[in-house]
Every structure is written in structure tokens, then in C-alpha cells.
């Protein structure tokens, strides 16, 4: 269903609502839907590590991590945090 069709569907019930407002609400509803149903699963490959750099931005849109691979080898989640903080 195209965005135009969804806007028309909403405007049949709420003719006072503008396009921008509806698109904002549709995007919010889409986020709720994806989080509740877990319908969109994928493998993100946007991160490449750099030597001596610990922290990396979380890929946008990620709501739940299932597995992480470092150089194609699955790595576990660390229980707790390292005792020495490193902000690099």
C-alpha cells in the first residue's frame, strides 16, 4: 500500500488531519508494529572496527539484537561491564 493510499484511508475518518501529521503518526505506528511483531529482521553490516576504538554507533532502527559477529565469528554478550572504563 502506497503512502498516498494510507493517508486517504486515515483522512476518511479524520478529514481535519494534515498530511504531515498523518505521516508522522504512520511512522510512529510503523515503529510500534515492527517492535511488537518482529517482522523485519536483517543483518546490518555498517560497522567496521578500528584498532583501539571501543565504542560504535548503534545501527539506526535496531530494536533487538539477536546475534553479533566479529569477522564472521559469533561473539557473546559480555555479562556486566569491564571494571575499567574506557571512553575511546
Amino acid at each position, binding site marked *: 500500500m502506497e503512502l498516498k493510499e494510507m493517508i486517504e484511508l486515515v483522512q476518511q475518518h*479524520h478529514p481535519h488531519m494534515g498530511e*504531515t501529521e498523518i505521516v508522522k*503518526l*504512520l511512522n510512529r505506528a510503523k515503529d510500534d508494529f515492527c517492535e511488537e511483531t518482529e517482522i523485519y*529482521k536483517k543483518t*546490518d553490516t555498517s560497522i567496521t572496527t578500528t584498532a583501539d576504538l571501543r565504542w*560504535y554507533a548503534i545501527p539506526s532502527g535496531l530494536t533487538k539484537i539477536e*546475534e553479533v559477529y566479529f569477522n564472521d565469528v559469533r561473539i557473546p554478550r559480555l555479562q556486566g561491564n569491564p*571494571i575499567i572504563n574506557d571512553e575511546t
Partner: protein
Amino acid sequence: MAKTQRFYFIDTHSTGEKIAIVEEAKNTITQDGYTDEYKTVSSAKGIKIRGVFTDTDLAAGTLDGSYSNIPSRFHSAIAMHVISMGYLDPRNMNMENSQIFSGGYQDGVKKAKRFARSNYVSTGRVVPQDF
């Protein structure tokens, strides 16, 4: 070749929530008399994160766009969620209608969950036949 065990964790970094990659390093990292068993990753390699994502936002200017990673038969459920939210708006408040459309959205969620779990596999049943 010696194996280096690596780990990931998520924490609040000084610039927001981030993912950290560390590797085992026995007794090499010390600070203020304490010794840590983990150090920052020391090589440049690719990271793959398998997980659940939200589809890309649509922009008001692109009316022919659609949520391409959500099967189209569930798009009406998303619209129903917005219609339900619209009926909670003071300009057009109607609790009864809001609940009706919220129910429609929940039906869509239930079907989509079942679909997501099925991984495009449907199971059949073997029926015995007399010849």
C-alpha cells in the same frame, strides 16, 4: 593460531547509547591498582549485527513510497493504528471508534507475529489413504 575471545556490550557512552567491542586480555589493563580482563578491540574487522529493525520512515513529500520491508497486506493494520490514535484526539474524540480500530490493529499484529515466526514455512498434515 591463538584464539582471542571477543565480546560485545551496550552501554551509555559519553555521547549516548553505543555498542562496545572488547577482547580478552588477562592482566594487561591496569588502572589505579585494579586489573581488567578486557581491553578495547585491537584490529579492524567487520561487525555484523543480526536483529530486529524498524522499517525506514516515509517522508511526507514522497506519496508513492511504501514500507517496503513490511508485507503490504499488513499496511492497513498500521493505518488502523493511526485511525485509532486519531479518535483519541480532542478534535475528533470517539472512544468507541478508537477501540474498534485498535482491535483491527491488534488483529493485524497477531497475524504478522504468526507470519514472522513462520519464516515462510507452512506445515502440512499427512492424511492416511486407503487403496
